[in-house]
């Protein structure tokens, strides 16, 4: 591991992934602590909807980054997606309401909203949004992410590809339309 680190001096983001119960959280915490001990302001962030950092560190880090070691360089944070989900729901609510009004339909929007936001991908896309926000804020020198077990993490990390495919498709159909 030290060789890998020495060989990648520009490394800024590291993700720990794998099957459930193999020790991702512990490995992520160890890597974060090590990075902080090298003098880097480090954030250990959990993107697992079932967070376990607070239990591991014996300190509540849900929804807010808190210092977790003596050096004041190591912060931990369990991403809270509730606000992001609420905001997205509100946006969807407004759009659906607009459409229902437009189409002169009297059905309540809530049923549509629930079915649009109840799928697990919705939580993951909120998690992805929060994760990318953290990266763009750029408040730390080094980021360690403790991810959910493989399948979810793959969806989370793959989301950027899914989004770019989606945007590409939209652009293509737009170009076609404009022709």
């Amino acid at each position, binding site marked *: 591991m030290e060789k890998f680190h020495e060989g990648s001096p520009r490394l800024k983001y590291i993700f720990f992934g794998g099957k459930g119960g193999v020790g991702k959280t512990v490995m992520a915490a160890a890597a974060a602590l090590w990075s902080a001990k090298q003098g880097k302001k480090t954030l250990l962030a959990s993107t697992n909807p079932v967070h376990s950092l607070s239990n591991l560190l014996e300190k509540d880090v849900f929804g807010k980054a808190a210092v977790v070691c003596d050096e004041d360089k190591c912060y931990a944070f369990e991403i809270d997606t509730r606000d992001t989900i609420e905001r997205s729901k509100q946006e969807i609510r407004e759009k659906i309401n607009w459409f229902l009004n437009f189409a002169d339909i009297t059905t309540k929007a809530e049923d549509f909203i629930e079915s649009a936001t109840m799928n697990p991908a919705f939580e993951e896309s909120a998690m992805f949004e929060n994760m990318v926000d953290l990266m763009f804020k750029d408040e730390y020198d080094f980021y360690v992410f403790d991810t959910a077990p493989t*399948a979810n993490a793959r969806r989370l990390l793959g989301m950027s590809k899914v989004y770019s495919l989606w945007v590409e498709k939209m652009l293509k159909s737009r170009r076609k339309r404009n022709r």
Partner: protein
Amino acid sequence: MIIKDTLKAAELFAKFDVPLSGYIINRVLPLGLKDQNIPEYLRNRLIMEEHYLKVIDTTFGKQILAAVPEMERDVTGLPMIEKMARAMFWRVLSSKQ
């Protein structure tokens, strides 16, 4: 099973262009125990481990970044995490001490 699942995970990550830097082997029992007077149960676990470590080595080879031991107690709290960090990065840490 974990080795197969890990290979499957690697395939899934590759499919989405998520680069893998390497693998860490966790909870390795100290093989040195084998020479001691230990119960049959533990001896079997060690024989099994020896076999799987070879499989892991042929499967992942140079992509293995670290192998860390099974600790004497659960890893929770800073002191145990620090111990784990030492096991993961021992060369860097020991060269600075």
